[in-house]
């Protein structure tokens, strides 16, 4: 615990650190990155209104996203080391009393732009444009029906993601947070006639909402402890009072974590992501692989100063990340639907990123986000192309040898390339980013996280295995396939122009240019994503570009300390790493007798190659063995649970259903009954009927007989007279 503040104070002693922002009204044009997607969503709405039948909405969205990407590129040039705050317009600000720090709450619509923001927006808008181009063809069968709705939602998503990343205060982040939640709800539920899609959309929104509650409470806490939610002011407040022991300050990171795990589908709240595959594939690629799910990582990276103060929270992040990676990998191995497998792999890779954050390397995590975005988008889009061509068929048991199928040669090659990247094959971009994370895991000061390094390596092997399980089954081996039953829109139009008559014979049709071009570009992106680490390896002088980006932002504490000393100091060459602050070299952690970097490098590649070889044997050379292995495991009761568990996704969904949803449902029904019967019919009507009941008691008095009345009257008079005489007059005088 003691180490953390020391590190923090030493770093702060630097000159104008990356935390003191200055207002830059001249950069108002940066707002274009938000305005363009918003404008395109409004235009799509108009198209919907005017019942446009053409591909206009796609064009609008692609243009808007392209413009946003250009704005970010321009920003890349202009924004220096110090962050910039640009105020667009006032939103919520109320002051009372003397308007001092705790007597007001301001949350205006302004942008906080530092290197991290630009870095994040680069791949968000970049990938967004390419995927929009891809979707323009992919969704063409719905041109008249849902096309405008689709592209409207995509534009809303990009606008919300922009708010989230570029927002200047936590409330803007919250606006983006829920905005992307809405967009994912609309997009997952795109095929709204399918009940499973609507249920999946609802599940996604609600699970995200649980996370959002955590974020909202964190916001309240932050204002209560530091008096402000604006980033610029927040960093200064944290510097002024870094670690107050009050429970509220301690609780902030945990609540932020809850929000992050909800959005980035980590252990407790990951159940919605696999179901989110109900949406169209471009949605899965853009939102549920590349951009939205990284929001959690961004949140923790942005709020890193708060996390650094609380090492237990960091350790928790690491452990949750590690365990999620492991769990998701195990499930991924036993699935048959290609999109579901990539979904679980996304969860697993996100687990890696949180592992990276937890062990203190925001650079490693961000770099992995960067590389993962590209190759995961590539994998999803190739899966989409396959699904597009094979009438919705995604079961890896029913597809084989696609490399040799005419028209799918390019798609398969790119898919194989994606698999190599996902498996973190040595010297691929993913290998370097994963390597960074594992190194930090091993060399982290907090020794509770060292075990995670080993878990990371195990997961790397599993990842390699299940990636190439899909790759060998689908793309290699003999050519045989069955068309999917899903009569997607585009399937009908297949039959429409399918020349030969006998409908039994099914010819898959390859994707056209609008799908091929984005695939190629993203593949190039995936390759280039590795470029920063290639440069450091070859020239030994250039510091990793991503590292400089992350270092010059609020997440700088997470950049590995040794290189931070001199921002442009020579990269941590694999061997002679000069540590600036601690006496003993490299924390003295030697892994298996070797230096951390070399050890991880070798072990990582070893794990990857072993994984590939195993899946090569099991899934290509002798495909029967997988089924045989499955039978043997199922045979004995002791090992049966492994297979059943993996295939049935460890019954986490059912567990949630049983433990949370069902009891709530029962309580709700009881309460509804209480409200109707007890409260309404019972008490309220009861009180209503009370006077009538009392009335019936007095009814016999009105019997109708004169004497009866006379008796009661005389009785009344006698009673009163007696009461007066006995009680009052005796006492009075």
């Amino acid at each position, binding site marked *: 615990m003691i180490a953390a503040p020391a590190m923090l104070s030493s770093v702060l002693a630097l000159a104008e650190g990356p935390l003191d922002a200055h207002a830059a009204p001249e950069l108002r044009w940066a707002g274009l990155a938000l305005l363009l997607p918003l404008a395109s969503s409004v235009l799509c709405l108009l198209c919907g209104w005017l019942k446009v039948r053409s591909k206009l909405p796609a064009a609008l969205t692609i243009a808007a996203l392209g413009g946003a990407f250009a704005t970010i590129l321009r920003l890349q040039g202009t924004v220096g080391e110090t962050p910039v705050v640009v105020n667009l317009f006032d939103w919520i600000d109320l002051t009372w009393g003397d308007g001092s720090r705790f007597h007001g709450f301001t949350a205006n619509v302004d942008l906080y732009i530092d290197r991290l923001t630009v870095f994040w927006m680069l791949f968000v808008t970049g990938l967004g444009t390419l995927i929009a181009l891809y979707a323009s063809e992919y969704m063409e069968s719905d041109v008249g029906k849902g096309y405008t709705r689709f592209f409207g939602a995509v534009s809303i998503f990009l606008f919300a993601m922009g708010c989230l990343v570029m927002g200047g205060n936590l409330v803007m982040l919250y606006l983006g947070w829920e905005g992307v939640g809405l967009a994912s709800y609309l997009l997952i539920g795109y095929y709204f006639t399918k009940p499973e899609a609507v249920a999946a959309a609802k599940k996604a929104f609600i699970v995200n909402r649980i996370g959002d509650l955590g974020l909202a409470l964190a916001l309240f806490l932050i204002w209560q402890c530091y008096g402000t939610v604006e980033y610029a002011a927040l960093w200064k407040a944290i510097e002024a009072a870094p670690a107050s022991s009050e429970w509220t300050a301690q609780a902030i990171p945990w609540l932020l974590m809850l929000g992050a795990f909800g959005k980035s589908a980590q252990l407790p709240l990951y159940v919605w992501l696999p179901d989110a595959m109900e949406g169209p594939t471009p949605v899965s690629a853009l939102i549920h692989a590349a951009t939205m799910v990284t929001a959690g990582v961004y949140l923790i990276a942005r709020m890193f100063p708060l996390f650094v103060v609380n090492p237990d929270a960091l350790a928790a992040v690491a452990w949750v990340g590690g365990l999620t990676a492991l769990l998701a990998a195990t499930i991924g191995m036993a699935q048959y639907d290609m999109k579901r497998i990539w979904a679980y792999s996304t969860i697993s890779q996100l687990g890696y990123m949180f592992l990276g954050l937890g062990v203190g390397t925001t650079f490693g995590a961000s770099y992995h986000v960067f590389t993962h975005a590209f190759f995961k988008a590539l994998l999803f889009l190739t899966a989409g192309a396959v699904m597009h061509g094979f009438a919705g068929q995604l079961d890896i048991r029913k597809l084989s040898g696609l490399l040799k199928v005419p028209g799918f040669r390019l798609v398969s090659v790119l898919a194989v390339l994606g698999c190599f990247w996902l498996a973190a094959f040595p010297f691929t971009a993913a290998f370097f980013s994963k390597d960074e994370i594992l190194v930090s895991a091993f060399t982290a000061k907090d020794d509770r996280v060292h075990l995670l390094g080993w878990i990371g390596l195990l997961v790397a092997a599993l990842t390699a295995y299940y990636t190439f399980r899909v790759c060998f089954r689908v793309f290699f081996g003999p050519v045989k396939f069955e068309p999917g039953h899903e009569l997607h829109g585009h399937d009908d139009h297949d039959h429409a122009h399918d020349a030969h008559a006998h409908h039994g014979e099914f010819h898959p049709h390859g994707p056209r240019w609008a799908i091929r071009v984005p695939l190629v570009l993203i593949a190039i992106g995936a390759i280039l994503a590795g470029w920063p680490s290639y440069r450091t390896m070859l020239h030994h002088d250039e510091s990793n570009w991503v590292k400089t980006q992350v270092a010059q932002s609020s997440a700088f504490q997470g950049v590995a300390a040794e290189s931070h000393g001199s921002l442009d100091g020579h990269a941590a060459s694999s061997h002679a790493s000069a540590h600036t602050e601690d006496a003993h070299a490299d924390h003295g952690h030697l892994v298996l007798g070797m230096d951390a970097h070399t050890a991880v490098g070798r072990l990582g590649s070893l794990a990857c190659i072993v994984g590939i070889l195993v899946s090569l044997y099991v899934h290509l050379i002798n495909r029967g063995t997988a089924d045989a292995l499955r039978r043997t495991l199922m045979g004995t009761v002791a090992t049966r649970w492994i297979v059943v568990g993996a295939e049935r996704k460890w019954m986490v969904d059912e567990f949630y259903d049983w433990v949370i949803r069902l009891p709530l449902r029962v309580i709700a029904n009881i309460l509804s009954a209480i409200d109707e019967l007890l409260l309404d019919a019972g008490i309220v009507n009861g009180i*209503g009927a009370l*006077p*009538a009941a*009392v*009335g*019936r008691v*007095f*009814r016999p*008095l*009105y019997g*109708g007989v*004169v004497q*009866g*009345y*006379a008796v*009661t*009257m*005389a*009785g*009344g*008079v006698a*009673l*009163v*007279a007696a009461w*007066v*005489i006995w009680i*009052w*007059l005796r*006492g*009075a*005088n």
Partner: protein
Amino acid sequence: MVDMSQTVALLAPEIVLFVASMLVAVLGLSRSTGVRSLVPWVCVVALIGSILALDAVWTPERIQGARLLFPMLGKYGKTIVALIGIGLVAVSAGSIDRRYEEAVARGRASFDALRVVRGEYYAFLLLSLTGAMLVMSAPDLIWLFLGLELVSLPTYIMVAVARTGRRSMEAAMKYFFLGALATGITLYGFAMLYGATGTMQLIPMRDVLVAQAAVGGLSTTAIVGTILTVLGLCFKLAAVPMHFYAPDVYEGAPLPVTAFLSFTPKIAGFSALITVLGIVGWSGHAMVDHDGVRIAYEGLPQPITAVLWMVAALTMFLGNIGGILQTSLKRTLAYSSIANSGYMLVGVIIGPKGGIGAMYLFMLGYGVMTVATFGVLAALERKGEEVDSFESLAGLRASHPWLAFLLTVSALSLIGVPPLFGALAKIVLVFVAFEGGQATLAGVLLLNTAIGAVYYLRFVGAAVVNPINAKSQEVVTVSHRWPKVAAVVAGLGLIVLPAFLSRLVDASATTVNGYIDYGETVASESKR
């Protein structure tokens, strides 16, 4: 001695009514239908004449001369009696002797002076109104007793004579016998009051009683006498425990008589009650507790206040609770009149400082609401019979929109929905209850308003909401348009009166002026 010419002059309004009643009795017997149909007009003219006479005769020196306990009470009280009286005459016009008159008009029956009832009916009506006016300006007990008797005897006859049915005869029988019983009790109370004070003149009686109170508290005969009188008068107000006759008599009596019964005996009863309590004196009483310490306190002697408090609370509760179970219209209105007596008793308990003024304001409101409600019901008939059930009222909106609207207005005003007059009268009453320190009683009053709303809503539901059913198909309006006119005037009055509320509140507050309560001087707060 009292200068007779002064008091006689003050009686001008009563004399006008008395002469008119004799005239009406005679006119009623004339052979020509034209003359007979003049009778209601004569009544109305007489009532207006009495109001004018009241203004003319009501000069300050005459009031001084008349040595009345509540000198100014007559001015306001008699005006209300006359005004509402006009309404009640209008409500009863057209339904007395209607079938016999139609038979004579169509020549089926020859005119037989013995069978015609209209003249006597209106004569008794005017006599009863005269009685009510007499009670308000009674200088002594005998005058008070005669006034009360003059109010109730004609009503016994009116109940029996207006419609020769088994039900109205039974109602008359019950009303007469129980009335006689109550009058007996009142009489005995008067006797004891006379015994306690030794004089029949009201003002000397009050001086004696106040002197007794100053010395050591009222004698037992005085207190028991007051309580017996109060309980006897409860019969007129239809207050618990004397209220049992009300539901049966109101249901049995013909509609116009029920309307009359629900107002005139009540105002006469309340005026008599205030006079009797005025004698006992509202303040300057002392209760000597065990060790002889004399505690001066405001208001009536403790036992009497306790009795009144109990009677008021029970009347409100039993009136409202009883009303919920009813299906017949007249019986529901009987319970409503019981409940309203309860509300007015709250005003009486609070006493001269605002209470009596608020009570008379509420009385005016209640009178207008009675005329409005009974006006609408009198204007309707089903197969020649009166309309007396909620089913037959259903869907009134479709057939007679204006009558439905008026019934809704009067029902909502009885409930106490604000912009209407009934609610504002109730608000003034509740406010005065707070002022007089009777917060719990105010609470009871508000609670009872809520209970009462249940059966008043049935009127609204029937008139506007429920659709027409078989029974309400045959409901038609009476040929005679006077009840409709009365209903319209009273209904619109409920909407318009709130605008004149401040003038009305001041007018009703004058009823207490001039009531010199020596006790007040003793309690060192002179009251001018």
